[in-house]
């Protein structure tokens, strides 16, 4: 524990800016993954334990696309679309068969998918890790803002994820389909009775949720290592985010993801060997005081 270092950091603008932006970037990527988990849970009441697999596939597809086309934009796009498609297939052929069953049965199906695709990735891309490398456009020195270091690539990432967050929340509140999704989250039977094609709706929800995770994987690919099983730690974190923010709440996921990013950013200075523990303690306290999460509705 190093509370003096934390105190010193919190009183210097350089340290606050740098750690806050690094927390922001960790948090925003986490938000993209968690948004999918919470969206799917909100509408379908399914905890998608296979969400880390979407993240992984997004990264790998982007990696291959970049190698073939040499375009980072195309890589991100293909990673997103491929996982969106994967989400639809996953929903149609597997998850739809266990709607209404025990949560453990759903867990079982998701876990099976995780196992299968970790090995599929191993077969297709090999068991070794891969690194995508930074696209040339972003191979530029970092900026200095208020004495803190901020890399342009991360500014771009934060911009893109913030844009997605805005589009997502506007889409949910303004568009017809968004309204239907929100209605389905509150009362699916009623929505179905009103003649909405819930089959299509559910597929769309999985496409969007999966696509977001794939997008996160693709966006992060230049700076993170790709390896089979890489989705696991991301899944755990996004799961924590969803629980803290409130299952089903997009706003909650955003706030919780940023919160976790900041805890990481400053925790690494104050408690370098116990940052994970801090996050679990936060999760336990929130579950005890407000089990539905920061932004969740009490069921």
């Amino acid at each position: 524990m190093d509370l003096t270092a934390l105190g010193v950091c919190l009183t210097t603008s350089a340290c606050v800016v740098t750690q806050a932006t690094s927390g922001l970037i960790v948090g925003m990527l986490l938000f993209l993954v968690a948004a999918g988990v919470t969206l799917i849970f909100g509408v379908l009441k399914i905890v998608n334990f296979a969400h880390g697999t979407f993240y992984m596939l997004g990264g790998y597809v982007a990696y291959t696309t970049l190698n073939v086309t040499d375009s980072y934009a195309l890589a991100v796009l293909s990673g997103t679309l491929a996982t969106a498609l994967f989400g639809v297939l996953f929903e149609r052929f597997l998850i739809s068969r266990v709607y209404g069953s025990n949560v453990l049965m759903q867990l079982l199906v998701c876990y099976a998918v995780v196992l299968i695709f970790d090995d599929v990735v191993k077969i297709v891309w090999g068991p070794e890790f891969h690194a995508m490398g930074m696209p040339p456009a972003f191979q530029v020195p970092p900026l200095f803002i208020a004495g803190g270091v901020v890399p342009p690539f991360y500014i771009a990432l934060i911009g893109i994820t913030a844009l997605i967050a805005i589009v997502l929340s506007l889409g949910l509140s303004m568009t017809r389909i968004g309204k239907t999704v929100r209605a389905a989250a509150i009362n699916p039977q009623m929505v179905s009775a009103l003649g909405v094609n819930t089959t299509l709706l559910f597929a769309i929800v999985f496409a969007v949720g999966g696509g977001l995770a794939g997008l996160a994987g693709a966006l992060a690919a230049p700076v993170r290592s790709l390896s089979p099983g890489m989705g696991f730690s991301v899944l755990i974190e996004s799961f924590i985010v969803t629980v803290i923010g409130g299952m089903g709440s997009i706003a909650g996921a955003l706030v919780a993801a940023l919160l976790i990013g900041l805890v990481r950013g400053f925790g690494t200075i104050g408690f370098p060997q116990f940052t994970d523990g801090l996050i679990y303690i936060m999760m336990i306290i929130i579950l005890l005081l407000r089990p539905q999460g920061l932004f969740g509705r009490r069921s």
Partner: protein
Amino acid sequence: MKAHPAWRDAVIAAIAVIVVLAIPLFHRSPAFEDFVIRLSAMALFATSLNLLVGNTGMVSFGHGMFYGLGAYAFALTMQMTDLSLPVAAVLAVLFTTFAALCVGAICVRLSTDYFAFITLAVQMLFFSIIISWQSLTGGDQGLRGGIPRREIFGFELASQLHLYQFCTVVAVLGLLALRHITTSPFGQTLRMIRDNENRVSFLGVVLWQARLRAFTIAGAFAGLGGVLAALFVSGAYPELADWPNSGQAIFAVMLGGINSFLGPVLGAMILLALNDVVTRFTEYYGLVLGIVILAFAVGLRRGVLDFLRLAWPGRAR
């Protein structure tokens, strides 16, 4: 539903013990003996979880915590003191029971999903403490140097045969005790809580007390399983208390059958056997296991024993 005669269970258990103990007299197979040792640990672990999941309707994602705690408590007691093995084992189980009581006191008031999440969170906290508290636990490398397995009544547990016999007896006794709890009036109460908690609370049962008791008992038996696991690997490792290990127990319960007492034992057997066989032929074990799990989940939609009992309902006793 007729009350289940306890002596029948005892006879079945006795026969099982005799049969399993007799096998090495006719044929020594170290691999089979290893399998039974590991199964005994996992069977206790999974069956104790099913006391919560199947019997009481409490889905715990964090049961591995008590399995790991049992293993660490036992291994550390053996390494740091000169107590005899049974005493250390009993102390380890008592310690785990107490821990389960404390964790349960925090967790059991939460409703289904939130209960699952909070048990998961507590487990992850526990896991990160094991990793961080390196001076005591050895961190990620686990406890090093092995567990001294002091002789008990002429039993030398470093010997495979003696360990086999010891684990068989402990596991069967443990399962018998769990069986007894399940069929007792308390077990009936738990099933009523699962089926309709409102009605039970109208009957004057204090829900959280009954749940806490179930949680504590389940933790205790998971701890006993952990003791056996520690004996097998001659150490304790953080992975025993990790999330994937809780997952293993959940899968054993689901594969074997949630509504059958022996379901989790069968599930554990299937999982262990699959692991042993498949890893020999391919390194794509996950692929095979995933497909098998999918076949169960999407095809049978329930565990094997539950499926069989549903297929032949009339033949049930």
